[in-house]
């Protein structure tokens, strides 16, 4: 299984990141992907910009570990995770997860697993700038914790 992890300050071309997980891989029959985007509204407030902080070094390690865990649970050909840090504007892609496998079940499930684990284990923190000039840290959600916990310890879901 091939893994590519990237944490980048530059804009993310999410669509272009998907092709490498299947091009040149004739055994691949299925590709699943997730794109996370910055929205212009959160908790009822208009958001003009967002800053993504991370823990350099640990971020890459955490994403690598999540990708490797997915590879242990499902038969995968390739996993690619690319995540922005720095300043973002609404509609900017924040994260891209792309997964390929011989058959669809593995890549569909692994893709969901990876984003659920990323949202609870990868050291990123979002800070929003609202339309009325307020800066606030985004709070972690219980629904994310529950989603990650729903993947049992050894299950190939």
């Amino acid at each position, binding site marked *: 299984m091939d893994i590519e992890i990237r944490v980048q300050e530059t804009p993310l071309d999410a669509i272009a990141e998907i092709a490498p997980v299947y091009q040149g891989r004739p055994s691949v029959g299925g590709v699943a992907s997730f794109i996370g985007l910055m929205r212009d509204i959160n908790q009822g407030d208009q958001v003009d910009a967002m800053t993504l902080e991370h823990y350099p070094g*640990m971020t890459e390690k955490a994403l690598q570990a999540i990708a490797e865990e997915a590879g242990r649970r499902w038969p995968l050909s390739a996993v690619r995770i690319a995540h922005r840090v720095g300043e973002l504007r609404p509609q900017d892609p924040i994260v891209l997860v792309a997964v390929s496998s011989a058959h669809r079940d593995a890549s569909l499930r692994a893709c969901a697993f990876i984003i659920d684990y990323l949202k609870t284990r990868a050291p990123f923190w979002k800070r929003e700038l609202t339309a009325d000039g307020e800066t606030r840290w985004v709070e972690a959600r219980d629904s994310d914790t529950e989603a990650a916990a729903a993947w049992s310890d050894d299950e190939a879901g």
Partner: protein
Amino acid sequence: MIRVLFFASLRERLGIEAEELDDFPSTVGALCEQLAGRGGPWHEIFAADRAVLCAINQEMAAEESEITDGDEVGFFPPVTGG
């Protein structure tokens, strides 16, 4: 000596990004109690029922995880990436 790093809202509330400790206990839980003892925002963040997360040498750690000389210990709020 260990190096302790603080991220995101923790860094803002404590007013510090990093520090070195020559005197440190052997577990994460005990270190949290030591930091809580500084009072003020330190107590608010590190006292019992804390929501703060910890990593040792850039891997997630638990309350009972052991701290060794030379370690890098990171404290941060629950993560919000993706």
